[in-house]
């Protein structure tokens, strides 16, 4: 007998293991309640047993299970069997979920397991009928991932859109118009000023158009191109005008994003140049450390510390420089906080491009008789441009989405991300929140689109570059000194901010009473530590599925070819791009009532974390898979292993480092997230960052500093452990940054 006789007999047998799932769906349907009365998932309420529920077509579900069971067991050829399984799986799933949607009854455990089993039945069908190339595991995975993306990314965002345009069951643009013309959105024409801001902003159009016309003439552009440039210039002029003279959230956020992204990009470039070409080895080495900072820092901790260093009575501004004003509250303060936070990101992105600069190219250009300026313009700049653009656009997105810094330092100006929150949480106007959310989402997606169009990158996965080895000509002295001074100032500021947080946790009252004390650490024991431990647990629980799901998606997208693959990519991109507050309001709108009732539970926090952090794992997975020869998987397949076993025996062992890295980053990001989860915390499901924000807002400074210190130390430890692990395994530690 052949080795694979067992396998072969199975393959040629007349039944399919799909029967297990068909039967499971039937058993789950009969054994568990299909709905539940309230929020508690585990309520086993007899009233929600299927036979006590209305709607005869709910019984389509078990009927389909029975048909599927029969189809799996009867001797049919695989195409016909597959088609029947697809039909029954789909019909059962649609009937079950349709019943939930029609009745609005929150789903019960029975619904979850029954419908999941039916999805697997459908997956078997797709595989057996040959509609999806791949075994049932792949087909089911594709279905599950697609369903999850629809339910937990697309549907919530759709709800936001719907809430913005459907008021009291009526389709209308009233709310959009009311919000956009309201004083918080775009306060352009201020009746209380003598000047006309509107006219000033409009004057940006001719100014911009004229500037671009001059540029077009200078470049001797063709007429059509010149027209395009002039109209583009007009639009740009208008945007600049609105940014400068408007006061509402959109003007403020735009201006903030432009400032923060520009400065971060410039600093990022400076640090990247310095990191590669300075003569001082210590500076070169410490560069990689700064790239860790944004990962380990809770979102508003730096802003909080800035008040103490830079406020009216700040250590630096008042005590050392003798200043006395409140510039820190408002746009300048937020911009500074964002620059501190985004520069490392910009550095990471640009580093790749700078590493791609080749000294030989520049020298070659000079030897060919080009001037330094010409060399820069024709050689250096084109090589740097993609990296700079990428860094700029990423910082722009981050700036728009930033929630913590405007909340702490924003003063009383409005920002899009915080308005989403205020409109919902303080003014309780879900439609207004939705309008803000839609606007924010559109802006961010436009920037993303611009990024992928301009840079020709199809996805967000290729943000970082790989530094190449090789000697570089050192920087000109003067430039190096300037850059060094900038870096040292930046480093001192950052170190000072972190140190002040630690300091604040050990003194009686930061800035007032410097007596050393452990009181604040003791005060953590009541609520702080339990909440911290709870958060760590939730973050850990969510990190595992986030990493696995991210890898699964990476695997499906990279290695499998199926209809709808672009949709999967798009869905994952969407969860990455959507600002946290928008996703937060989307979750509360989508999951607060009705069939998908999930709010006020740990489950929704876990789900929020999974789908928020999964893209990091996708990126790691895609990068990891790119290093692995697909023949390895094919070899495993031809040797008889199913896809599941191939993943377990071949891919996971080979990708263990990026997998662990994905896991740890998912954990760390969950620990420091706030913008999305602030909407969904509930009694017993309180998270560290939300608690910390409360303390900061209400002046429990010492406690906040102690918690901030605890968080930073924890994150640092975790990240250092990861780096140790990757170094031990001899794999590039440069790859650990998400």
């Amino acid at each position, binding site marked *: 007998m052949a080795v694979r006789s067992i396998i072969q007999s199975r393959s040629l047998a007349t039944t399919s293991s799909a029967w297990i799932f068909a039967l499971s769906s039937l058993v789950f349907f009969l054994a568990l309640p299909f709905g539940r009365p309230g929020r508690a998932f585990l309520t086993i309420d007899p009233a929600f047993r299927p036979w006590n529920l209305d709607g005869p077509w709910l019984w389509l579900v078990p009927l389909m299970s029975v048909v599927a069971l029969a189809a799996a067991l009867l001797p049919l050829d695989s195409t016909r069997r597959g088609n029947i399984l697809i039909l029954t799986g789909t019909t059962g799933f649609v009937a079950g979920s349709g019943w939930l949607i029609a009745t609005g009854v929150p789903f019960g455990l029975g619904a979850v397991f029954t419908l999941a089993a039916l999805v697997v039945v459908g997956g078997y069908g797709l595989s057996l009928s040959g509609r999806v190339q791949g075994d049932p595991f792949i087909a089911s995975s594709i279905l599950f991932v697609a369903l999850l993306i629809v339910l937990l990314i697309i549907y919530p965002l759709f709800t936001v859109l719907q809430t913005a345009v459907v008021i009291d069951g009526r389709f209308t643009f009233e709310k959009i118009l009311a919000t956009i013309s309201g004083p918080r959105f775009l306060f352009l024409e201020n009746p209380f000023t003598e000047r006309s801001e509107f006219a000033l902003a409009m004057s940006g159009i001719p100014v911009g158009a004229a500037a671009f016309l001059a540029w077009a003439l200078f470049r001797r552009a063709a007429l059509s191109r010149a027209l395009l440039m002039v109209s583009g210039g007009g639009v740009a002029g208008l945007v600049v005008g609105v940014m400068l003279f408007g006061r509402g959230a959109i003007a403020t956020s735009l201006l903030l994003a432009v400032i923060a992204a520009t400065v971060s990009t410039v600093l990022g470039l400076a640090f990247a140049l310095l990191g590669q070409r300075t003569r001082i080895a210590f500076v070169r080495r410490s560069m990689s450390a700064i790239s860790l900072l944004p990962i380990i820092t809770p979102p508003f901790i730096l802003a909080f510390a800035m008040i103490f260093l830079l406020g009216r*009575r700040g250590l630096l501004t008042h005590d050392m420089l003798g200043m006395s004003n409140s510039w820190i509250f408002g746009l300048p303060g937020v911009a500074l906080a964002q620059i501190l936070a985004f520069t490392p990101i910009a550095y990471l992105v640009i580093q790749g491009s700078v590493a791609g600069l080749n000294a030989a190219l520049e020298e070659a250009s000079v030897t060919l008789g080009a001037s330094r300026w010409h060399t820069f313009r024709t050689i250096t700049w084109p090589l740097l441009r993609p990296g700079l653009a990428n860094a700029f656009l990423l910082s722009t997105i981050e700036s728009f989405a930033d929630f913590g810094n405007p909340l702490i330092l924003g003063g009383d100006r409005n920002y899009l991300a915080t308005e989403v929150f205020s409109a919902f949480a303080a003014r309780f106007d879900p439609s207004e929140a939705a309008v803000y959310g839609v606007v924010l989402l559109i802006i961010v997606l436009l920037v993303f689109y611009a990024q992928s169009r301009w840079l020709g990158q199809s996805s967000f996965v290729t943000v970082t570059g790989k530094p190449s080895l090789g000697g570089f000509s050192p920087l000109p002295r003067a430039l190096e000194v300037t850059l060094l001074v900038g870096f040292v100032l930046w480093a001192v500021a950052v170190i000072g901010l972190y140190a002040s947080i630690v300091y604040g946790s050990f003194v009686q009252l930061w800035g007032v009473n410097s007596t050393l004390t452990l009181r604040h650490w003791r005060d953590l024991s009541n609520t702080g530590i339990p909440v911290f431990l709870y958060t760590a647990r939730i973050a850990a629980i969510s990190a595992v599925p986030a990493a696995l799901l991210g890898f699964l998606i990476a695997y499906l997208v990279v290695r499998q070819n199926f209809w709808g693959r672009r949709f999967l990519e798009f869905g994952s991109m969407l969860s990455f791009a959507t600002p946290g507050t928008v996703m937060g309001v989307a979750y509360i709108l989508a999951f607060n009532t009705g069939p998908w009732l999930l709010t006020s539970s740990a489950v929704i926090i876990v789900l929020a974390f999974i789908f928020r952090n999964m893209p990091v794992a996708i990126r790691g997975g895609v990068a990891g898979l790119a290093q692995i020869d697909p023949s390895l998987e094919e070899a495993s397949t031809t040797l008889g292993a199913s896809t599941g076993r191939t993943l377990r025996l071949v891919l996971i062992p080979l990708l263990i480092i990026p997998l662990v890295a994905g896991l740890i980053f998912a954990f760390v990001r969950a620990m420091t997230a706030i913008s999305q989860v602030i909407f969904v915390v509930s009694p017993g499901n309180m998270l560290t960052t939300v608690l910390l924000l409360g303390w900061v807002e209400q002046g429990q400074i010492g406690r906040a500093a102690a918690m901030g210190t605890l968080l930073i130390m924890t994150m640092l430890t975790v990240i250092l452990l990861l780096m140790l692990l990757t170094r031990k395994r001899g794999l590039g530690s440069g790859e650990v940054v998400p």
Partner: protein
Amino acid sequence: MKRLSLVLALFLVLAGSAFAQRVNVLCSPDLAWCEALGPAFEQATGIDLEFVRLSSSEALARLRAEAANPVFDVWFGGTGDPHLVAFHESVTEFYKPSAWDELLPSLTNAVGETYIPLYTGAIGFVVNEGVLEEEGAPVPRCWEDLTNPAYKDLIAMSDPNSSGTSYTTIATLVQIMGEDEAFEYLGELHQNIQQYTRSGSAPGQLAGRGDVAIAIQFLHDGVKFAEQGFPLTNIAPCEGTGFEIGGLSLIEGAPNRDAATRFIEWALTPEAQLIAAESGESYQVQSNRNTPVHPASPDLDSLNLIDYDFEQFGDPEVRDRIVSRWTNEIFPVPR
């Protein structure tokens, strides 16, 4: 099957805490007070207490959003107006505690059978005299003083869109001056405001750190910051001032109604009310007349309290009109 049992186990872990008896409290006063409630209540009754701290406006929003499937059992603290709105919208229901007659009659009479008075506190100025001195500005005594250009950029108050404190302040001014005059005054005051904060107690914090010199807010929050060690003094305006009656409400359709009523009964006992000042860093005057007033608490008898019309200014329509008038007429004016 192994995978299935893992999933089940995860569900059990996540939902496990739902089986113990507990009460979910939506807590609107200072976080420190909210934090101190749990251990004391658990010790007194053995019931677990879980809370979420939200400002009173946010709390009302949350309760409205969850009205169909309430999560919370009790709404603890926060300015009275939102409690009143919640009662009128049937988001909360009136529960008459056994201690009703022990509560200060001035409070119970003012609110009637809508919500339970929990504490009271008055609006005033929380002043950092050091900053004033440095900036060469006098210490303010009256509302009128605050329009002095010397205070440019030195005053903070909260935004009525997000803070009940701010609304109480504006309603107080309307009651003292009349609506149009009050808005004229607010317009002048606006020129001196450094920022309108999201949270009601944040101005005191700014004053404490010296980012502003004067915070308009509840005096008991000023006491809190002063007790923490910030160089702050409390000043009651000479023209008189308004006050709040912090509320305690039972949520309509509370999932743990029994635990909720036990919590309400407990919260009104002098022992429970003492927690506020002793470990909660909160210095409001507590509603139970048997609760000793903390020495640091503002002495309400010595303040010139106006006859605050809770009925009229608790009306959501009046509130909306005043807040939107402020938002449209005061907030946008350049300064």
